[in-house]
């Protein structure tokens, strides 16, 4: 019994980090109908930022977020302005390929600049023992940070003017435009936030896992599963989906094997698509 609780808790902690990454992905899809295949690479950039800030300035990853968040926001803003805006209303294939090109360019650039060496940030380690349960300290810290950031983003989306502008643009860009909303700017803000969140996810992974140029790809597949579960376009859905996926992954690994758990994740994704394509909170498209 205790071990089952342990497993579920591990899964929830895992899900926290997925939520950060998937949240941004779903936001981009919601506001712009673009599937950003380069999202994982923004995570990677965030991870490297955290590593270098730690290595050069001795900043611990949580503190370095104060620097990397605005930086990644800026990166996203520029990316949207220069590249993504050109394919916003284009057919799906166009945006998929474009973002794939960006992903390749970023991965290749990282390989050339940072080399393929594995890096990692020895920030936290060890367990917090409560009774018989052992909670991973770094994961707790990462999950809490993820919750704070996701919460802040959700607050922004639901309570602020610009947040509402983003949601309006997501619902219907033309109507939003007619209402006088600057949809171009809304999109830039959305992409900026999404990228900042991805970068933050990267910062968290920098002390949980190893940092290397191709690290984004593994997380992206999980992120896709999350947004399908939660509903493509729904930010709260991504959060819930991430937690659910984390628990599924963790429990399946425990009950069967880690390898089979991978298959379970994809089967869950497919089942969701077939039974309820709009996910938990997505809107059924007319």
């Amino acid at each position, binding site marked *: 019994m205790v071990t089952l609780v342990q497993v579920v808790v591990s899964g929830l902690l895992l899900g926290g980090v997925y939520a950060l990454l998937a949240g941004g992905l779903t936001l981009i*899809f919601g506001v712009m*109908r673009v*599937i950003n295949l380069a999202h994982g690479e923004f995570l990677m950039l965030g991870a490297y930022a955290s590593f270098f800030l730690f290595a050069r300035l001795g900043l611990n990853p949580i503190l370095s977020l104060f620097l990397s968040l605005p930086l990644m926001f800026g990166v996203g803003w520029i990316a949207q302005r220069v*590249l993504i805006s*050109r*394919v916003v209303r*284009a*057919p*799906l*294939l*166009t945006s*998929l*390929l*474009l973002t*794939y*090109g*960006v*992903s*390749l*360019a*970023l*991965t*290749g*650039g990282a*390989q*050339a600049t940072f080399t393929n060496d594995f890096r990692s940030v020895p920030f936290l380690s060890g367990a917090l023992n409560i009774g018989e349960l052992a909670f991973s300290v770094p994961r707790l810290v990462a999950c809490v940070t993820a919750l704070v950031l996701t919460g802040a983003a959700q607050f922004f989306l639901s309570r602020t003017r610009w947040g509402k502008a983003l949601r309006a643009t997501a619902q219907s860009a033309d109507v939003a435009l007619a209402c006088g909303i600057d949809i171009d700017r809304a999109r830039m803000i959305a992409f900026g936030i999404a990228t900042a969140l991805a970068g933050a996810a990267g910062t968290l992974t920098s002390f949980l896992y190893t940092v290397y140029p191709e690290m984004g*790809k593994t997380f992206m*597949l999980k992120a*896709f*599963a999350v947004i*399908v579960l939660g509903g*493509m376009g729904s930010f709260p859905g991504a959060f819930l989906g991430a937690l659910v996926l984390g628990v599924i992954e963790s429990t399946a690994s425990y009950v069967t094997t880690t*390898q*089979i758990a*991978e*298959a379970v994740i*994809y*089967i869950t*994704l*497919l089942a969701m*698509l*077939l039974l309820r*394509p709009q996910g938990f909170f997505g809107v059924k*498209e007319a």
Partner: protein
Amino acid sequence: MRIYTGFIGAVAVAIALVPVFGSNYTKTFVLQALMSCALAASWNLISGFTGYVSFGHSAFFGIGAYATGIAIVRGGLPAPLAIIVAGISSATAGLLFGYPALRLRGPYFAVGMLGVAEAIRVGVTVAEPLTGGGKGLVLVPEDVLTVSYYAMFAVAIATVLVTYRVATLPVGLRLLAIREDEVAAELNGIQTTRLKIGAFAISALFAGLAGGIYAWQMSYIDPGTVFAGSLTVRAIAMTMLGGQGTVFGPVIGSVVLSGISEALWARFPFLHTALSGVLIIAIVLFLPGGITQILQDRGWLPRSRRL
């Protein structure tokens, strides 16, 4: 137009003659280009024509590769039979997955197919007694470079021919209608479900055949390589570069992109990934209709479905 078809004909003849005049390296390189061509053309059959963008095309290539591998290693079948098995397996998989998957639209279909490809890859990895798991499968190595070269050539030609027939027959128009507006197509009496699934199965068939020949020729396959996402993406990029929904688009795209990749990678070993990315961005931004469309815009090619 004559020049165009003449050019394609010349390329075909050149490819046919490579084993006679070319070195083994050239044969290997062109064989891999032909494989890319078959993959691109088969992807085009479903995604270029119907607009259902599949991000899991590598699934069928991988199924074909493993079907052949298992047929030869565990079943003791001779290679030609094993490759036919590959085609049957992947076509069946196409029917099996196509039926539920093609009910999804747009991004859901794309992500769904990605999930299918990954699920199959993991499935193959886990089914170790049959497939060798992560270790890969070792086939009996034979020096079949020339034979497999022609086999792959045949598959590539077959795929293009089928595309040609589909494009010029009314069925091609119906597929294109699905791409333009599926609801309207249905209202017009087009049996969209049957057509979609049919196209999907044929697309899977050719991808699987290509996979089978690949396995036979390489004599070693592992899940990471034959189910690689990059296979799908290359097929997509090539088709897009050449012109999706056209007959020869994938051919041009695969020839051009294979050549550029090879040249890029030979010159810039450390930068070629980044440069490939930039290249794809450039293609998407400046050549969305592909080379075929540009040639048509310029009047060098007629706007015909035969191309």
